[in-house]
């Protein structure tokens, strides 16, 4: 109850202290507010325009610059990569062409060697064949002679066995005639 009475009295005091209407319309303290407001605004203005805003502007510009640079660098690297790929493809194509050329060359060389070897072999074979033919002919001639000798001998023997008198010249002539026939 004591508090209640106290409050009642303090309320009366409050009613006097609290503005009857809007404290906003109490013009006696406008000068004070306006003074401090102007101080506040000037301080904020200087802090912002001298320190904060240029700093943020710098940071933003720097970031923009960095981004632009990075994009340019990336572009450059991309171009480099494309160049490298082109060079690689070109080298690959060159190597392939070179390989084909070497293969063709080797083929031609082998062909030439082969042709030469074939020709040489042919020639050798021809020479050998001719030699063999000659040998055969010789052998044949030798054999014919031997046959003649054997025939003459045999004929003479036969003639003498039959009791005839064989003349060598006659026998040979007779054999020659027979063999020719």
């Amino acid at each position, binding site marked *: 109850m004591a508090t209640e009475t106290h*409050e009642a009295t303090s309320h009366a005091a409050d009613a006097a*202290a609290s*503005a009857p209407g809007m404290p906003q319309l109490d013009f006696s303290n406008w000068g*004070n507010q306006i003074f401090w407001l102007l101080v506040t605004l000037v301080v904020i*203005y200087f*802090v*912002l325009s001298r*320190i904060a805003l240029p700093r943020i502007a710098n*940071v933003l510009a720097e970031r923009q610059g960095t981004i632009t640079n990075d994009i340019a660098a990336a572009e450059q690297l991309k171009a480099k990569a494309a160049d490298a790929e082109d060079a690689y493809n070109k080298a690959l194509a060159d190597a392939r062409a070179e390989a084909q050329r070497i293969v063709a060359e080797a083929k031609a060389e082998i062909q030439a060697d082969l042709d030469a070897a074939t020709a040489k072999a042919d020639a050798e074979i021809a020479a050998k064949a001719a030699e063999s033919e000659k040998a055969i002919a010789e052998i044949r001639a030798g054999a014919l002679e031997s046959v003649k000798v054997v025939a003459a001998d045999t004929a003479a023997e036969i003639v003498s066995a039959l009791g005839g008198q064989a003349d060598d010249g006659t026998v040979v002539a007779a054999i020659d005639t027979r063999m020719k026939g």
Partner: protein
Amino acid sequence: MASEAHGAEEGGLVFHPMDQFIIKPLFGGDEIGLFTVTNATLWMALAVLGIIVMMVIGTRSRAIVPSRSQSVAELAYGFIYKMVEDVAGKDAVKFFPYIMTLFMFIVFANFLGLIPMSFTTTSHFAVTVVLALLVFLTVTIVGFVKNGMGFLGLFWVSSAPLALRPILAIIELISYFVRPVSHSIRLAGNVMAGHAVIKVFAGFAAIAVVSPVSVVAITAMYGLEVLVSFIQAYVFTILTCVYLKDALHPSH
């Protein structure tokens, strides 16, 4: 309980929704002279401090990849810069620090005012009238300096029929001079009304039966006030930009 009984005694609840706006000297005494440090001074100083923390200390690292606090400062910068550029035009960019000052002060004063038991400097007409008059004077002076007498073309609507132009000129002239009034009362009125309504609901909270409703209402109003705090700062700033555009390009 005591206040309830007391209220019943007087035949109703007693509210002092406007007491929160009373300006008191901070260090004793009753007289408020021009340089007396008052609660208004304290909360203005806190606004300055808040701005310094956000815009200067927050950006001290100057990082290319911003920290959280730096992002906030950059966001505020980009928000107002873009507004000035888009609304008032590219040549208004040199007024950007000035507009940024207004915006930052109003936004900080509004939000600091939402702290319980705090004092809202922007709820006082003395403050908003000065802010609005500063804008009005700046715009008028810039208009005449930039365009000379051509600035009066703002009131002479050349696209209207000739007969209507004098009437329109009077209307335009009146609306031009009403600008600082609406500009200032809009801000202080919104802030003050919200705070007073919260206080009224707080008074109802003394009655046990309605106090849950009252607490919910206070919460809802508080949410609304958070929006209003930002929106009124935004509106004040964008109107400044619009007026500035008139000064720089008075032709309609």
